[in-house]
């Protein structure tokens, strides 16, 4: 190898070697930081099925980005053309090198700079290599079309489906500049190569022939190859500290995800999640807080800050509704909620607490088959408790209202603020209090309590939401007499929908008692009311503004009533004052009291008699 050739491959080779060393060190440290339980889970999950599903997901998500395809088609083309195109370029380049040299394993620079090394020999190599040239040109064109879209996205991101464009930090911009330089540099290098030495595919060859330069300027071609090598090397050097770390980290991230290893309270797994994030900005557009410019707690900013040396500030950590919309839309499935919870626990877990006043050994609860737990928020909407009482009495249930006169919290607000120790302390008291009723079924009207009960209470009896109870009554054929003739829209509360997956039951109930306008639904697409207990930063007015936006998105022109299944959502929506809001229990209780008109009553009695 001549001195110039050595200089040419040096930036690329050094960059690649540096990148691999950094990656090996990082991945080793992160794998080491996995909890022993998760390490064991990883080894246990090793099976052909797991390997196959991981490979398929790596192909479909890392290269083809199919999740983006289902959301935004133009944005998908941009990402896919760059990722899949580059992959094909590497693959085809290697295949070309193997075909020409006959060696399957060769130095990486030999395939990357193949056209440089095979100058002047291509015309004599036959039609097969010419086909490779055409193929490489086609792939390069494919990548350059994606690159054009990426550049255009900086000017007008709306065309690609992003209302709010992510503003990257300085380091990411430098890395992006190197990336954007790689493909035009290769195009120019190949074109000039063909100008002076002939050959080339249907684009580079033609462009090469068009450029008419004297032979003594052939050093321009060499320079273009050096620029290409420097662009590649520079990109590899800065990649480990940029958002482009996702290109390689998505692979171990998918492997861990398929082994059901979660980022919650696991530093190692959290690191893989953090660096698998591509900062694509889709989450920024999913977040309802984005409409308010003064808050920057969105997942995009949170992850960007946490990756920086200084880390995320407390305001960013605590400024999130935790509605899960970003998690649902994330094409990489970065578990941002768990990472945020880890941070909240880190900063707030050691705060003091004393709940010994909740210990009342003398207090005796009456036992009943059904224990109804309203929760703190239902206390502020007593209509729901009254309605549930009416419903229980109507169906002749043996029930007890656990927190009717005085209240105790389920603990979720403590947990969401990061006070994990205090949360588990509260659980002890609340669990004991509920189980003192010796219930066979626990019903709650608050989805926040439902999530907590199902996640951490480990009750020996089933816990259901009141909409599930009402739906079970309808399934038994116990329909209410009447129907409210009101055009109603149902709002999916975040904790009930995205957290618990309860979508159809509330709709089944509403279908029978009102004129429901949104019986069909898109799973996980619901809007947050804005009143979430997870956020600690937003002002009351801003929460109301989010509630207003959500209602405007939800309701139709002729909607008369907004139905929800969460007391907190009800309170928040009510403050906006746009439309009457009722809980499903209230509507159900109302429909129970409707007297049937005489004609219908006679008909129904006749049906019963027959």
């Amino acid at each position, binding site marked *: 190898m001549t001195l110039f050739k050595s200089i040419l491959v040096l930036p690329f080779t050094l960059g690649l070697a540096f990148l691999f060393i950094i990656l090996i060190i990082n991945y080793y440290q992160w794998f080491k930081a996995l909890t022993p339980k998760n390490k064991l889970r990883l080894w246990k999950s090793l099976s052909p099925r797991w390997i196959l599903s991981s490979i398929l997901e790596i192909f479909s998500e890392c290269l083809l980005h199919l999740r983006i395809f289902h959301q935004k088609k133009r944005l998908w083309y941009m990402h896919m053309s760059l990722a899949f195109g580059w992959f094909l370029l590497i693959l085809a380049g290697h295949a070309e090198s193997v075909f020409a040299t006959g060696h399957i394993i060769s130095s990486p620079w030999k395939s990357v700079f193949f056209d440089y090394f095979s100058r002047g020999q291509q015309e004599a190599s036959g039609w097969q290599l010419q086909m490779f040239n055409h193929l490489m040109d086609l792939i390069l064109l494919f990548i350059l079309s994606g690159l054009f879209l990426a550049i255009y996205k900086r000017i007008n991101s709306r065309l690609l489906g992003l209302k709010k464009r992510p503003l990257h930090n300085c380091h990411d911009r430098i890395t992006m500049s190197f990336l954007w330089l790689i493909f035009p540099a290769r195009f120019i290098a190949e074109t000039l190569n063909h100008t002076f030495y002939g050959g080339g595919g249907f684009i580079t060859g033609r462009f090469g022939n068009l450029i008419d330069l004297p032979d003594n300027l052939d050093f321009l071609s060499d320079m273009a190859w050096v620029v290409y090598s420097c662009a590649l090397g520079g990109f590899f050097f800065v990649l480990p500290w940029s958002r482009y770390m996702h290109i390689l980290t998505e692979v171990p991230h998918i492997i861990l995800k398929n082994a059901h290893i979660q980022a919650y309270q696991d530093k190692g797994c959290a690191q893989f999640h953090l660096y698998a994030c591509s900062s694509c900005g889709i989450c920024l557009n999913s977040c309802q807080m984005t409409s308010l410019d003064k808050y920057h707690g969105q997942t995009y900013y949170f992850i960007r800050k946490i990756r920086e040396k200084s880390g995320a500030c407390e305001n960013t950590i*605590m400024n999130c509704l935790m509605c899960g919309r970003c998690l649902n839309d994330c094409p990489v499935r970065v578990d941002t909620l768990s990472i945020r919870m880890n941070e909240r626990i880190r900063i*707030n877990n*050691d*705060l*003091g*607490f*004393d*709940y010994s*006043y*909740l210990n009342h050994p003398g207090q005796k609860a009456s036992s009943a088959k059904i224990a109804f737990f309203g929760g*703190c*928020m239902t*206390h*502020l909407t007593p209509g729901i408790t009254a309605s549930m009482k009416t419903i229980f009495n109507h169906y002749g249930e043996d029930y007890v209202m656990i927190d009717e006169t*005085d*209240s*105790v*919290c389920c*603990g979720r*607000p*403590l947990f969401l*603020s990061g*006070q994990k120790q*205090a949360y588990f302390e*509260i659980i002890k008291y609340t669990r004991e209090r509920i189980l003192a009723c010796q219930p066979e079924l626990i019903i709650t009207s608050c989805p926040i309590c439902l999530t907590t009960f199902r996640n951490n209470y480990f009750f020996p009896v089933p816990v259901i939401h009141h909409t599930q109870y009402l739906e079970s009554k309808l399934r038994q054929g116990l329909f209410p007499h009447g129907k409210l003739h009101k055009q109603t829209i149902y709002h999916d509360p975040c904790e009930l929908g995205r957290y618990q997956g309860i979508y159809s039951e509330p709709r089944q109930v509403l279908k029978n008692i009102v004129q429901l306008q949104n019986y069909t639904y898109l799973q996980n697409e619901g809007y947050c009311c804005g*009143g979430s*207990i997870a956020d*600690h*930063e*937003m*002002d*009351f*007015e801003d929460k109301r503004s989010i509630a207003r936006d959500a209602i405007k998105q939800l309701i139709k022109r002729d909607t008369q009533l907004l139905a929800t299944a969460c007391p907190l959502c009800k*309170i928040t929506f009510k403050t906006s004052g746009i439309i009457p809001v009722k809980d499903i229990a209230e509507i159900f209780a109302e429909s129970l009291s409707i007297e049937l008109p005489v004609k219908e009553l006679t008909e129904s009695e006749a049906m019963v008699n027959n």
Partner: protein
Amino acid sequence: MTEFGFSIHDDLMIDHDRPSPAYETILEKVPSISMCISCGSCAGTCISSYQSGSGFRKFIMLLRNGMYDQLEIALEYCQFCGKCSLVCPRGINTRKAILEMKKYFNQKCNDIV
């Protein structure tokens, strides 16, 4: 001088001129606490006030008057449910204020240790 039959303990006397460094710090982070009118809606709805006697109004009163020992104990009773923030007529971000107060005193304890 009229005798009312009771006396005011100096420590419990409300004196808004008395400097309270903790109040100043919390006010910087949660400016809305200055809007508190001590209406008592928060204490009325508080789920722990009945059993523990605490409540957001009390926290603000103790904070303003620099009665930190009592405040530290009262803060530990808070269950953080956020009902106070929902009923506050002045729209005070009570949960953030309580969290900041807890952090302030926790930091103080750590510094002493």
